[in-house]
């Protein structure tokens, strides 16, 4: 279990994991006042959708659905002061579920073993995937916690800017997916990082 978490943590800097980290961070930043709810929602959506895909229950979402879901999910986050409570969590979970479709995981020794048996491993497979994902997303979670620990006055002053920045990043992810450019961006990241 520790090895699985560590492998996830190790791959968190790889381009294969940035596909998850960038939207995850954007969701939390865009939902600044509810970043804990948004972060948890994103992780739950990501976990559920990844498991359904890796267990062979569903296939990869079409790009149109993925991009549209991310785009629509960004709206309640950047307008959260006027939106109903709980909508942010739902939107974040939707964004997480859509993001799972963009994920082509690095398959190291530990995660490879988990994936090999995921079709038949049931709840155990879900738990192992959760542990791996926590490793992958640990830097994002730590960043959100660090952001929340900043002085309140600075956060109040920067709230609009943070929300807009997060929304723009989500918008870029969505549009890149809709235009088919997302794969080229990831390829470029791979090429430049020489992984």
């Amino acid at each position, binding site marked *: 279990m520790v090895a699985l978490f560590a492998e996830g943590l190790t791959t968190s800097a790889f381009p294969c994991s940035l596909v998850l980290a960038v939207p995850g961070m954007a969701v939390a930043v865009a939902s600044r006042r509810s970043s*804990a709810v948004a972060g948890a929602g994103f992780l739950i959506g990501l976990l559920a959708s990844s498991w359904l895909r890796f267990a062979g229950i569903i*296939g990869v979402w079409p790009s149109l659905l993925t991009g549209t879901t991310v785009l629509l999910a960004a709206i309640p986050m950047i307008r959260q002061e006027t939106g109903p409570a709980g909508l942010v969590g739902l939107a974040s979970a939707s964004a997480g579920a859509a993001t799972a479709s963009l994920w082509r995981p690095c398959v190291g020794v530990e995660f490879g073993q988990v994936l*090999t*048996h995921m079709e038949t491993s049931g709840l155990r497979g879900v738990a192992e995937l959760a542990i791996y994902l926590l490793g992958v997303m640990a830097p994002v979670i730590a960043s959100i*916690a660090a952001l929340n620990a900043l002085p309140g006055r600075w956060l109040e002053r920067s709230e609009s800017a943070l929300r807009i920045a997060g929304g723009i990043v989500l918008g870029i992810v969505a549009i890149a997916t809709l235009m088919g450019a997302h794969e*080229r961006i990831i390829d470029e990241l791979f090429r430049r990082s020489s992984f």
Partner: protein
Amino acid sequence: MSSTRIVAAALAAFLTGAWAVVQLRSDPETSLTDATAADAVPDQPSTTNRPVLTAAPENFGPVPELTDLDGWLQTDEDAFADVRGDVTILQFWTYSCYNCTNTIPHLQDIYAAHRDEGLEIIGVHAPEFEREKDPVGIQAAAERLGVTWPIALDTEKRNFRSWQGSRRFWPRTYVIDQNGDIRFDKIGEGKYAELEATVAYLLENGA
């Protein structure tokens, strides 16, 4: 309660729950580490003390055909037809894939140890990105990485999809026995000792 505390509490609960599920459900019959006799072999292959299987490896059924390929590299013929009846390692890979290239030294070791006994290897190159489709680039990468076995070009990933269904990953490594049945199936890196033990068992005992 501050957001930081909520995040920390949620994480702690999540980790505890996941740990509990893994612990409670790891009974000996379904445990990943105890699933087959093959797992009893050490994790790393050794050139001096080769791993041995004491029971026949699981049979996953007949291997599909390799169809509609976009050509071959490092062979003049349809190598898949040529190796029919031989113990064969077949791996879906792509040259920019970090995890795929990590497996190659292990495949080289196993090939060196068992080639004379009749082991064959086929790499099915299924590109992840557009730039990996160029056969010149694939050949150059093969030479750089020390891939000496035949490479099937699955440029449009038809076989990558048909073999793996909805669970498609790089790398994915199979062992095919003399009857054309799959006897080893592994996603990702690792389990090299089990891979070699499966090959050795099939070469020694037949399918």
